[in-house]
């Protein structure tokens, strides 16, 4: 492999941190979910890079499972967003302070 493995690790760390900063800073709850997708993709890049580096296919199978969990998370998360929007007509996380309604 021409590209050293550490470059892939740095790339995935960079994307993961961008996602982390997005989750911590944004107010729009949809963008927060998009940032979680960024973090999941960063781990997937790491998995595939090491799978190719070590000649072991288990990493790619784990990316497959991470994809399944991402799809499930998006479906449930967007359903929660729609339910919250119906309740408060807002998707700003600052408006969701109460656990009890």
């Amino acid at each position: 492999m021409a590209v050293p493995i550490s470059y892939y690790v740095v790339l995935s760390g960079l994307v993961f941190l961008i996602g982390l900063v997005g989750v911590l800073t944004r107010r729009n709850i949809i963008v927060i979910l998009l940032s979680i997708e960024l973090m999941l993709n960063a781990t997937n890049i790491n998995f595939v890079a090491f799978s190719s580096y070590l000649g072991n296919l288990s990493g790619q199978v784990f990316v497959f499972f991470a994809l399944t969990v991402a799809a499930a998370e998006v479906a449930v998360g967007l359903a929660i967003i729609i339910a919250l929007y119906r309740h408060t007509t807002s998707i700003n996380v600052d408006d969701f302070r109460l656990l009890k309604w």
Partner: protein
Amino acid sequence: MASFVFFYFAGVIVLTATLVVALRNPIYSALSLLVMFFHVAGLYVTLHAEFLAAVQIIVYAGAILVLYLFVVMLLNVKREERFHGQASVAMFLGVTLLTEAILLVFLSEGPMFPAAVANTSELVTGNTKSIGQVLFSTYLFPFEVASLILLVAMVGAVILSKKGILDPKS
């Protein structure tokens, strides 16, 4: 050549990931995430994971992102203030962790990663076929659990988005 391709994909991935977080309009964020998904798929192709590249485009770009855009347009949100009070703390934390990670990777003494293994036989028989063989032999039970997760998510999404679930009076 290979490193040029890698730097192209990595540069576009980092740029679009930054745009996802920085852009004001959630539709533009979702569209730049779409560009990022395509470039991650390209990175997978350079790493000889062709099956995952196809799955990445079909599932992420085709299904998940369409769901996002659907919800963004359904909710019809107006522009709001982007960042809240803990933005400066988060930026500080992110920059610190990033510097630490880069220093750890590039300044560490001795081999940090195990030595690379040359192409084994399972990687040359065709990516999809060998993934299928691993998935349905070694990882058969996790595969079944994944189907259960999808079922639970489907039922949960239907129940949660039903009218009146947060309002017990109606």
